[in-house]
């Protein structure tokens, strides 16, 4: 899906370390490390990926590690290898068995 149209996408390969704030209009696929703020429409944190800082997006899929803050306006999936610590805001959440969750969970629209 990502390879078809790479316009507006960010790919961070394994071993790459990015520091700063990033606005990604479409897909952000992280196999390396991002330190800072990352905003994307769709975020994929691969098993080797690490985000330290603030992660915001519509759909977020976490197989790696995210620290500090996660905010997802549509769907948040923490896979079995995923590890999330810090405050988490979501509208729809799914955690696979084995997923690691440590922190505060907040539902963005609790009465929907």
């Amino acid at each position, binding site marked *: 899906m990502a390879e078809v149209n790479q316009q507006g996408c960010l790919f961070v390969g394994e071993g790459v370390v990015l520091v700063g704030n990033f606005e990604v209009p479409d897909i952000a696929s992280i196999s390396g490390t991002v330190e800072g703020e990352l905003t994307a429409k769709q975020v994929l944190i691969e098993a080797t990926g690490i985000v330290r800082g603030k992660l915001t997006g519509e759909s977020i899929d976490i197989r790696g590690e995210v620290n500090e803050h996660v905010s997802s306006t549509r769907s948040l999936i923490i896979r079995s290898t995923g590890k999330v610590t810090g405050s988490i805001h979501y509208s729809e*959440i*799914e955690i696979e068995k084995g997923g690691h*969750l*440590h*922190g*505060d*969970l907040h*539902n963005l629209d*609790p009465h929907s």
Partner: protein
Amino acid sequence: MSIFSKNQPSAENEPSASNSEEAVQEFVAPNQEEPPSASPPEQFTKAESTPRSNVLSKPSIISEGFVFEGTITSDGVLNIAGTVLGKITAKSVLIDSGGQVDGELNSEQLVIKGRLQGSVNCEDLNVGPLAQVDGDISYKYIHIQRGGKVSGKFIKN
């Protein structure tokens, strides 16, 4: 006659045969679906592989419309379809889709399909798609199915 048969059970064929027949009938009656020779070893392996209480003890059930206020302690399985206000300690707890728990909950296995409010301490947590959970939760293994609404502090042990 009864004295006579008791004195010579081995010499006489008839009383021993009728005794064993009765015993067999009693044994067969409850599990007619399976041959009696196959079922006992199967039960033994089950009892060894899964926690004992799951196989041996019946679940305690708080049915729909039932409101319980107080402390529940159990070594076995607890199914809640009604409402519990208070403290629950059990090995395995199921909060059914209409069930509601308000208070403190300690268990090894916890399945939530209904509503839960309060502090939870468990090993294995499974939150169903229609569940609503609000509170401080410490767990070892967690599984939240899509749609489950959870909020609060989560701590992995």
